[in-house]
């Protein structure tokens, strides 16, 4: 769903800048007093929203755990050090040495989970960044030329959007699966696969909001003043169109983390089965699931909670940035 965004300033001819425009803040010292800046208002609304706070806390906890995993983890990941204690019928459960017990390869469960957060964060963030950069560039190309208009602009817009339509004709998980299947079992393959699968969403979203912004009065005013088209697009239309794209990126982080696990589950993730990755841990646990559900429940819940955090925060951000929700 695209969200129409209003320019934050009064929108006079000489002051078309939005929240991303540094000139706005300089020209409008009163903005601080009234809290009229879209982003500042959004932060205030976020702080009043309990769902946003819970989401932000989960995300924060996840990021911190991922970064300091080596400090928190009691052992080294993926060593299979205690493989001798694992028998076909039983994986040792919680004990004094292993708070959450062992995994089916004989590594410490807690360590695996903590390092798994690291994998998820890296894969999730990098792949979403890939999708965002490529998708937003395509969207900028289409939306920028589309907003400027003219025969050439229209042609560029159409060409880019046809490509995006083709990508959209394949569901994103399937797109990711097919890319990963070709690229092979390694970290780059996963990141590229999940990143590329997100490209069409970002491209469409940014183009849509740029075209909507292109019809605003401040764009008309700017072009009436004789400001060059490129400048209008880059410093007026683009900053005002970024909101929905940023919201989508937050929400996509949740999807990306789930998709990384899904690719692992389909056997397309890291080659090494003992690696500390939540999706892998789920697959490995599956054979013993009926006997020892703990093995699957930990990583499964970890994925779900992380995805929940990003979703809560992303949706709260969407609401906070939506001018219609301002009261």
């Amino acid at each position, binding site marked *: 769903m695209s969200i129409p965004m209003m320019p934050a300033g009064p929108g006079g001819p000489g002051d078309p800048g939005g929240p991303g425009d540094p000139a706005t803040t300089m020209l409008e010292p009163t903005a601080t007093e009234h809290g009229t800046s879209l982003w500042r208002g959004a932060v205030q609304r976020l702080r009043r929203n309990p769902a946003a706070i819970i989401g932000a806390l989960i995300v924060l906890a996840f990021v911190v755990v991922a970064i300091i995993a080596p400090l928190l983890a009691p052992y080294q990941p993926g060593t299979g050090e205690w493989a001798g204690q694992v028998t076909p019928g039983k994986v040792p459960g919680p004990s004094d040495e292993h708070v959450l017990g062992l995994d089916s390869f004989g590594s410490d469960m807690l360590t695996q989970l903590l390092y798994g957060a690291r994998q998820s964060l890296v894969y999730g963030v990098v792949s979403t960044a890939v999708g965002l950069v490529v998708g937003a560039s395509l969207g900028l190309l289409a939306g920028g030329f589309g907003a400027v208009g003219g025969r050439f602009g229209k042609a560029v817009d159409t060409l880019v959007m*046809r*490509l995006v*339509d*083709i990508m959209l*004709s*394949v*569901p994103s*998980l*399937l797109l990711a*699966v*097919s890319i990963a*299947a*070709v690229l092979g079992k390694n970290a780059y393959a996963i990141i590229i696969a999940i990143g590329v699968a997100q490209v069409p969403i970002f491209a469409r979203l940014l183009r849509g909001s740029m075209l909507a912004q292109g019809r605003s009065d401040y764009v008309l005013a700017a072009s009436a003043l004789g400001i060059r088209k490129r400048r209008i697009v880059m410093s007026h239309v683009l900053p005002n169109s970024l909101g929905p794209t940023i919201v989508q990126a937050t929400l996509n982080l*949740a999807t990306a983390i*789930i998709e990384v*696990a*899904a690719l692992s*589950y*389909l*056997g*397309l993730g890291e080659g090494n089965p003992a690696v500390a990755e939540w999706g892998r841990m*789920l697959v490995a646990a*599956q054979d013993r*699931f*009926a006997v020892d*559900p703990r093995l*699957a*429940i930990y990583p*499964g819940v970890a*994925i*779900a909670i992380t*995805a*929940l955090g990003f*979703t*809560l925060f992303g949706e709260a951000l969407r609401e906070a940035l939506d001018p219609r929700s301002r009261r």
Partner: protein
Amino acid sequence: MLRFTLRRLALMVPLLAGLSLLLFVWVRALPGDPARALLGQRATDESIARVTEAYGFDQPVLQQYGTYMGSLLRGDFLSSIRDGRPVLEGFLERFPATIELALAALLFAVVLGIPLGYLAARYQGRWLDSVVVSGSLLGVTIPVFFLAILLKLVFANWLGIFPTVGRLDPRIDATDVTGFAVLDGLLTREFDAAWDAIMHLVLPGIALGTIPLAIIVRITRASVAEVMHEDYVRTAESKGLARSVISRRHVLRNAMLPVATTIGLQTGLLFSGAVLTETVFGFNGIGSYLFSAISQRDYPVLQGYIIFIAIIYSLINLAVDLLYGVIDPRVRVS
């Protein structure tokens, strides 16, 4: 209406042409000898020669593309590298199973989703709303395969209410007529087989239907909440119409438009989500066919699958757009 349909069908042509071109380039973009890339490192020279021959990898690229497009246009989706069977045949054989599963999932999502979304909007801010909203949030964030594993553990392994894997109990001797297990059971009056097939659909259907359910709930809730504040609803209220008439005739009908779009989009997605669900439940549909193709690097199957899904996806979206006219007369005029 007819012109619109034909135009939309015509628009699918460049889309599919573009997609097949991308797929063509994609397999050729593999590093090294394409035949070796397809068959993997341990391939024998013999099998490489066979694949090179079969796919014309030794011919000029343009000619390869011509041959490839020609065969696609004839409806010939190449053959599986592994068993040499035509890809299309493999699909059509398994497709009924996936349709059945998708229908089960859709039924679960729609029948539960629309009323829940409606009730949540009606009692906005009350406990029912909070429960529905949090539940739908959970539904989107729980990974499908994890949910599938959990359902299987609790309801199949522990409680033993539902079967763990497959489409039919192998002990039941069912007659195959259409490929749809439930329908076959009803047609041949083998009601035990039909019942067994339904029982086999419950858990996979719930697992696959949970994400669409959550999304349908949220869209219905948002849409109903918006419509409820429309002027015409207030007018209807001030006219003294009964609450049930207002909700049926004025609120629900107007709120259904975005819901219909969502259902259409989600139906398309079900066919790709089926990969995970079918794998967990050993359900022999196109999803598990794709899964085995991935693990065996059977690219023709993967390619065919993508084109197949893209066609279905586009057709479903077209159907949704046509459905608009039925739901909303205003669309018909324009």
